[in-house]
C-alpha cells in the first residue's frame, strides 16, 4: 500500500437485512488530509466510519487503514486512531478532569504523561476552568471540545469525527474547525462527516454520500468547477412569478429565491442562460439573467439528483 494513503476502501458495502446502508463505496484518503463526508441523514456516513474503525464488519469490500487490514487488524489499529462518536458519549456523571483521566488510563498513558497532556489539552480547548464541572452540565460547544480532547489524548495519527458540530452554535463551530486545522497542521489525518455545506467546503477533499453511495468526490474547488454555466442568477422585479414561469422549463434541477433574486440550477446543456432569458421575456417579466459561480450546495444537489436519475433508470 502506498505510504501516502491513510485509508483505502474498495467495494465497501454494509447491509442491514434488506436495507443497503453503504453501497459499494470506493474511498482513498491521503495522509494529512481533512477529508469530508457530506451527506443527508441516513446516507451511510456513520456506518462507513464504523466499518473503517473496525467497529462493524462490512458485508463486502476491502479496507486498509494505516496499513492495517480491517476488520482483521482492528485491535492494532485502535491504538492509532481516535473516534469521536456522533452523540456525546463521554460520561455525563463524571467531571471534565475525571473523564480525561479515565481515557488517559484506557490509552495506557503513564500517570505523569497523562497529567501534562491533560493540562495541555484543557488549555488548548479552553476547558481549564471547567476541570471540576460534571460533563453533563457543559454547553454543547464545551461538550464537543471535551470529546475532541478525549479523542486526541493519545496523539492518534488518524481521527474519525462523526458530525462533530451538529449540536453546536455557529461561533463554536468556527472555533471547533480552527482546532481541527491545528491538528491537521501537526500531521494528523482527519475524516469528518457533516451535513453543513460551509464545513464541507473547508475540507481538502470530500465525498458526497447519498443513499449509501459516493455520488461525487474530489476537492471542493474541482467539484464546483465541474459545473460551468449551470448556475444562473435571475434578478427579476417579481421573483416569485419568475420562479413560477420557470417551473416547467426542461432542464431546471432546482430553484431557490435569495432575497429579491432567483438562483437557478440547470442540467448540463447548451445555452441555458439564453433559454431562461427567453422564458422571462415571453412571460412579460423584466429580468436580468447571468451565470454565477456554483457553490457546494449546487454540487450536492446535482450529485444527488443524478443518483436519483440512475435509480429511476435502474427501476
Amino acid at each position: 500500500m502506498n505510504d501516502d494513503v491513510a485509508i483505502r476502501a474498495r467495494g465497501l458495502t454494509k447491509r442491514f437485512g434488506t436495507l443497503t446502508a453503504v453501497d459499494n463505496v470506493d474511498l482513498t484518503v491521503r495522509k494529512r488530509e481533512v477529508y469530508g463526508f457530506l451527506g443527508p441523514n441516513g446516507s451511510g456516513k456513520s456506518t462507513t466510519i464504523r466499518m473503517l474503525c473496525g467497529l462493524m464488519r462490512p458485508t463486502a469490500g476491502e479496507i486498509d487503514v494505516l496499513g492495517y487490514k480491517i476488520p482483521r487488524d482492528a485491535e492494532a489499529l485502535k491504538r492509532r486512531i481516535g473516534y469521536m462518536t456522533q452523540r456525546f458519549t463521554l460520561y455525563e456523571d463524571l467531571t471534565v478532569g475525571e473523564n480525561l483521566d479515565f481515557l488517559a488510563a484506557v490509552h495506557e498513558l503513564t500517570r505523569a504523561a497523562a497529567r501534562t497532556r491533560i493540562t495541555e489539552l484543557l488549555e488548548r480547548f479552553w476547558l481549564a476552568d471547567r476541570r471540576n464541572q460534571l460533563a453533563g452540565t457543559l454547553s454543547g460547544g464545551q461538550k464537543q471540545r471535551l470529546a475532541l480532547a478525549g479523542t486526541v489524548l493519545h496523539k492518534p495519527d488518524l481521527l474519525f469525527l462523526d458530525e462533530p458540530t451538529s449540536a453546536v452554535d455557529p461561533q463554536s463551530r468556527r472555533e471547533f474547525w480552527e482546532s481541527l486545522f491545528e491538528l491537521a497542521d501537526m500531521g494528523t489525518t482527519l475524516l469528518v462527516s457533516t451535513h453543513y455545506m460551509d464545513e464541507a467546503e473547508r475540507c481538502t477533499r470530500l465525498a458526497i454520500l447519498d443513499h449509501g453511495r459516493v455520488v461525487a468526490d474530489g476537492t471542493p474547488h474541482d467539484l464546483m468547477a465541474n459545473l460551468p454555466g449551470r448556475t444562473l442568477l435571475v434578478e427579476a422585479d417579481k421573483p416569485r412569478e419568475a420562479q413560477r414561469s420557470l417551473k416547467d422549463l426542461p432542464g431546471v434541477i432546482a430553484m431557490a429565491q435569495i432575497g429579491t433574486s432567483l438562483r437557478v440550477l440547470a442540467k448540463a446543456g447548451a445555452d441555458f442562460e439564453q433559454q431562461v432569458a427567453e422564458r422571462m421575456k415571453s412571460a412579460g417579466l423584466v429580468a436580468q439573467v447571468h451565470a454565477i459561480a456554483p457553490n457546494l450546495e449546487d454540487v450536492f444537489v446535482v450529485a444527488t439528483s443524478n443518483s436519483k436519475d440512475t435509480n429511476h433508470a435502474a427501476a
Partner: protein
Amino acid sequence: MQLRRLGSIIVKELRQLRRDKLTFAMIIGIPTMQLVLFGYAINLDVRHLEAGVLDQANTARSRELIAELAATEVMKLGKPLQSPEQVDAALRSGEISAALIIPPDFETRLERPDRPAAQIVVDGSEQVIQAAARQLAAFPIYKNTGWTSRTAGIEVVNFYNPQRRAAVNTVPGLVGVILTMTMVLFTAIALVRERERGNLEMLIATPVSPWELTLGKVLPFIGIGLVQVTIVLLLGKLLFDVPLRGSLLELYASALVFIVASLSLGVFLSTLATSQFQAMQMAFFTFLPQILLSGFMFPYAGMPVAAQYVAEVLPLTHFLRLIRGIMLRGASIGELWHSLAALGVFIVIVLSFAVSRVSKRLD
C-alpha cells in the same frame, strides 16, 4: 489485561456510583426493607388467634387441656361459649377464628385411641389459620399418649415459638435472596446502560479488552455485595437475635463466592438485553425460580424431582445450603465443599460464556 486500565475502570465506576443517589439508596434500602418485611410481616406462624371455648365436659382434665393450649399462645382462648350454635355464630361473624370444643364424653374418649377426644373448629377461609390449627392438631392429645401425664411442656414451648423460629430460618436465606436480587440486577443494568448511552461505542474504539471492561464493571459490586451481607447479618442479630454458630470468616468467604456467581449471571444477562428495561425483566425472570426453587420459600425435599434438578443449577440453592449450614448448624466450609464447588463451576461456565459474548463490535 492491563492493571492500570482495569483500575481506572473501577475508579470510574465507583465515582459514578457515588453520584447515583438512587442506586446508592437501593444498596442500603433493599436489604433493610427486605429484612424487616420478611422478619416481621411475612410471618407464616400465628399467635394470639382469637378463639372461643365450648367446654361441654367441664372436668378437671378438660380445664387442664384448656390451660395447656392457652399457654402455647397460638390461640387466645378468651371467649367462653355455651352451645354449638354460639360457636357457629361467633365464627361466622369473624369474632373468633377458631374454637376449641370439648365434648361431654371427653373423659371416656380419652381412653379410646381411635376417636379424637376434642375438636378445634377453624375458619377455613384463612390459609394461615388453617396451617396454625394443623400445628395445634399435632398436640399430643390426639395421639392419646396421655398428655396429662407429661411433665412440664418444654416440647410444646419450643414448638410454639413461632415468631422466633421464622426469623432464625429466614434471615440466612434472606442474605442469599437480597444478593440475588441486587447483584444480578445492578450489573446487568450497569452494563446495558453503558451500551444504551453510547459510552460503549466510544470505549470499544480504544484498546480496552472485553475482560477489562467486564471485570472493571463488576469488581466494585463485590464490595457492595459484602456491605449488604454485613447489613443483613447485623440487623438479623440486633432485631431477631439470629445466631451464628459457624465461622464468620467462612460465612463471608461463601458470600463472596455467591456474589461472584450472581455478578456473572448479571454480566451474562447484559449481553442478551438491548435496553435497561429488558435487563430488568430478565433479572426478574431469573429471580423468580431462584426464590421459588432454591429452598427459600418451599423445602427442597418436598419438591418434585424435576424441580430439584432445576434447583441444582441455581446458585441460590447452593448458597442457601452453605449459609444455613454455617449459621444454623455450625458446619464448616470443608463439610459443605460440594456446594462451594457447584458455585465455582457455575461461575467459570457463565462468566466465560458471558465475556466471550462481550464483543468489541456493534454488529
